[in-house]
């Protein structure tokens, strides 16, 4: 039983003050023993049975409430703020003069090149995270594997650099 997530975090970590562990065990029993027994089916606590589920449920709820909180003032503003649109007020802003042309200005392809390099590096550096977690357990050659991985990554960077793709032309 290793449910340790959420505001209702239910296990005492090995903190220095473990005097209260008796009470927490009691709370544990209440949550897992008695309630489960009282509703006579252990599966109703499906998300408590699996700790991962538990944390993602929390994050999902956080996301939902995190969307609701910014929406509330916007809705409130919609109710109280004046709404008197007119064409001049609604025209796109361009430093006081009339808007010239389409907002679709030509972009430098350079933005795109940087996004390309970024994509490759992002994917590769994200893959290094599982590697980083194994360093402590596994022997030294695992480190060297990672270094090889990074070396290949650097080759790409050097190529892009020598090719002049990192210059803002």
């Amino acid at each position, binding site marked *: 039983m290793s449910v340790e997530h959420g505001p209702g975090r239910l296990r005492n970590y090995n903190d220095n003050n473990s005097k209260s562990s008796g009470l927490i065990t009691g709370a544990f029993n209440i949550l897992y023993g008695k309630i489960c027994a009282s509703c006579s089916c252990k599966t109703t606590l499906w998300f408590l049975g*699996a700790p991962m589920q538990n944390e993602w449920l929390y994050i999902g709820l956080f996301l939902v409430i995190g969307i609701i909180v910014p929406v509330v003032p916007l809705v409130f503003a919609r109710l109280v703020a004046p709404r008197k649109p007119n064409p001049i007020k609604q025209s796109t802003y361009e430093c006081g003069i009339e808007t010239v042309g389409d907002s679709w200005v030509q972009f430098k*392809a350079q933005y*795109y090149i940087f996004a*390309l390099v970024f994509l*490759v590096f992002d*994917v590769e550096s994200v*893959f290094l995270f599982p590697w980083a977690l194994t360093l402590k357990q596994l022997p030294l050659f695992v480190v060297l594997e990672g270094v090889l991985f990074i070396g290949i990554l650097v080759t790409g960077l050097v190529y892009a650099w020598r090719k002049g793709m990192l210059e803002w032309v």
Partner: protein
Amino acid sequence: MSIPLSWYLILAAALFCLGLYGVFSRKNAIAILLGIELMLNAVNINLVAFWRYLNPTQMAGQAFAVIVFAVAAAEVAVGLALIISVYRRRKTVVADEIDLMRW
């Protein structure tokens, strides 16, 4: 985990078919790539579902999914670079009009 494995497989199949439809029905080359992304994700859902349902201690499914991520990223990088390059030369992104090598 009260969800049957078949649900995931059916969802992935539907996603794959939608991607397939997108690839074949769209004119725009970028939209075709969008369809391919959907198909790759359908494959990934299958891989992860099989990992979870068959043998979670064996990480094969997740490792494969990671490789598929890399393949997807590589495909997008090269594919979009090609499209942009073609667009610069021929001012079009419609796949049917890029037919210089057709005959």
